[in-house]
């Protein structure tokens, strides 16, 4: 049993499958996170958004959910770094002349870089809103205070843009890795994957853009 699990984690397709599963679960988290955040735009001086934040942080099951999320992130990152290092080692001498003609894109080329930016952004984001006790008294006010500054808006804008670029390659790629692709629906999968990435990125980008330019009057 353990040997089987170990083999599944050391095999190339096994590692990629775990990366795909953890990544897709994290996309699921992003969609719920965005849905909750959008309550900020309710025209009620942030009271429903604050009530949502309060309901989340006072839920006794929250630590378990956070532990699962942290595990998913760490597994995804650890496997990503390992796969990337193996990939570098697989070609010791680079080509002198370079030409790419397949599906290689800015997004697919920069997965490690965008992943690193998202990680740094995630740490800043957790420090700003999850670990700052003052933020929990008035979440809507804390969001407004953070994103109405140029520096705050820029940090969140860059973090979310990197996330969007990462996802534009990641979502369809994860399905392919899990074997869930076929010539009959490949083009739909590619479009839907990029589409979902754009929706998630634009959804989250709405916050720094709206708050910075409106001065935060929600």
């Amino acid at each position: 049993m353990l040997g089987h699990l170990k083999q599944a984690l050391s095999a190339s397709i096994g590692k990629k499958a775990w990366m795909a599963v953890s990544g897709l679960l994290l996309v699921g988290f992003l969609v719920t996170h965005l849905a909750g955040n959008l309550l900020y735009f309710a025209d009620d001086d942030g009271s429903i958004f604050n009530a949502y934040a309060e309901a989340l942080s006072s839920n006794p099951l929250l630590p378990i959910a956070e532990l699962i999320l942290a595990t998913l992130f760490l597994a995804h990152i650890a496997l990503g770094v390992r796969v990337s290092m193996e990939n570098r080692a697989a070609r010791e001498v680079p080509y002198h002349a370079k030409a790419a003609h397949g599906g290689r894109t800015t997004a697919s080329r920069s997965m490690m870089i965008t992943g690193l930016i998202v990680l740094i952004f995630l740490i800043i984001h957790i420090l700003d809103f999850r670990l700052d006790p003052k933020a929990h008294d008035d979440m809507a006010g804390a969001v407004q205070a953070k994103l109405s500054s140029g520096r705050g808006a820029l940090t969140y804008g860059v973090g979310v843009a990197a996330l969007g670029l990462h996802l534009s390659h990641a979502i369809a790629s994860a399905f392919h890795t899990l074997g869930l692709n076929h010539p009959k629906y490949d083009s739909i999968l590619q479009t839907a994957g990029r589409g979902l990435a754009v929706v998630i990125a634009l959804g989250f980008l709405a916050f720094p853009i709206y708050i910075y330019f409106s001065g935060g009057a929600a």
Partner: protein
Amino acid sequence: MKLTLQIWRQPSAEADGNFEIYTVGGVSEDMSFLEMIDQLNRQIVLDGGEPVAFDHDCREGICGMCSMVINGEVHGPIKGTTTCQLHMRSFKDGAKIVIEPFRAKAFPVVKDLAVDRSAFDAIITAGGFITSRTGSAPDGNAILVPKEDADQAMDAAACIGCGGCVAACPNAAAMLFTAAKVTHLGSLPQGQPERRARALSMVQEMDSQGFGNCTNERECEAACPKEISVMTIAQMNRDYLRASIAGDEA
């Protein structure tokens, strides 16, 4: 035609290599790329030099021996062709052409442009076969094969094992080659008994040969002279994961 060639020269596997610049004249646009190299080698030999070593055999695009990365493109600029099927009319007179060997840790350079692709043989040995009874030839129509399955198997079987997918992959992964073999045999009734074990053992061997991991960028499909689809990779991932989840042994 007169061309300037920048070619990777490496006396042996252990020796360091470097690029050498050659000028070759009298090239006809009807020559294949390999015939152009033959012309260059004739010139080098007449000058008392060591000819450029390169892999070649059938020179009609079916053996999988010829290789080379030409101006950064595996098998050159024309889609769906091997280097031997590439003609000099695809280049302009006076052009400068950079010629490199396939680059992958699992494909060490033997000499100049010739690389050792034995790693592919090891992958085939691990599971690229079916079990069949010996004796007299079986009746051709004894086992019926649906047309769709036959087409899928035939498309995958077009792989000539040249290694262009590995050379074009940003990670030097051998997924397209292995997936073509897994899909070819796994699509047919005769390949079913070993289907799951085959996916496990061929992937295990592929990993142990030092190839990289797939990042789904489809450079392999674009470079493949036989235009094998990356959908074979999705098929192999399915077979592999199904076998893994079922707890099968390689």
